[in-house]
């Protein structure tokens, strides 16, 4: 079979890069919206901040699974 393209080095790095795109955008939107909410309604700061951290924890998990997968599937 004729070889058309070749990659050198660790492909896991590309995998992690891809895994970081979604959560990156997600956390950006999430924190942005939470700040917007806090700016509009400063008295709701406590609830909004707690829920923001919860949302970050769930979103961030995807990027971290990407990181772990990079080490697992070598």
């Amino acid at each position, binding site marked *: 079979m004729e070889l058309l393209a070749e990659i050198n080095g660790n492909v896991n790095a590309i995998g992690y890069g891809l895994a970081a795109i979604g959560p990156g955008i997600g956390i950006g939107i999430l924190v942005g919206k939470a700040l917007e909410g806090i700016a509009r309604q400063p008295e709701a700061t406590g609830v909004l901040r707690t829920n923001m*951290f919860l949302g970050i*924890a769930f979103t961030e998990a995807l990027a971290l699974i990407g990181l772990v997968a990079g080490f697992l599937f070598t």
Partner: protein
Amino acid sequence: MLNVPAAVRLLVPTSGDEGEGFHAPTIEEFFPPQLFGEGTWWGPTRIDLTGFFMAGVLSLFFVLAFKRTTIVPGKLQNLGEMAVDAVYVNVIDEVMGAKGRRFAPLLVTLFWMILAFNITGIVPPFMIAGTSVIGVPLVLALVSYAVFNWAGIKEHGVGAYLKMNLFPPGVPKPIYVLVTPIEFISTFILRPVTLTIRLLANMMSGHLLLVLFFGATSYFLFEVSGLMKSVAIVSYAMGFIFVLFEVIVALLQAYIFTLLTAVYIDGATSHEH
């Protein structure tokens, strides 16, 4: 060498004769040699000993702080009360309300234990987080898993608890074919898995970043000649910034783990569904 100006040639990194070049950190960082009892399952590595040491420090602090409690607290008792109060105010009251107070011993212990284990990642004699090997986060996640399921079953009974989680109300009957497996996986399988991975991967990546930047600093400073040596300054500055960043990550991960445990317990014991 090609015919290039001397100034440009200075910018090309050339390693000296001595030194063995730059080694990027690998996963082997987290499998250091056993200090004694080599080859046995119990032989502790320096990461394990870090964990034991911090557990000892933490226990000593809380025992000393609350050994003889007085109405007007002394200095140490004051500090201990602040430590407990931080979790009460920021996690328990925020998420669970007054009924969550009975879970306070678990949540306070979780928060301070994780924080103590995380912070060793940037404390010089250790320089590795006790939570950066899978054992500690896994056991903590299993404890959290056992407690929220136990609390839910005790509150509702087994059948009602499973029904509440697996068959959420307000969904058309045929859709349960899709909803029930998803709810089962997300509630009973993914919760402990993500609790473990979130803590583990955060501390792991933090340590790898620090090793990378300080390893690069040492490489550029001692083994590279020419103007490239000055990259060591940038690399060291980045390492320093990430040390500060790790303080925030250590705090945040302890907070998030405790917060999620509180949310899971609250979800399992609530009656709104």
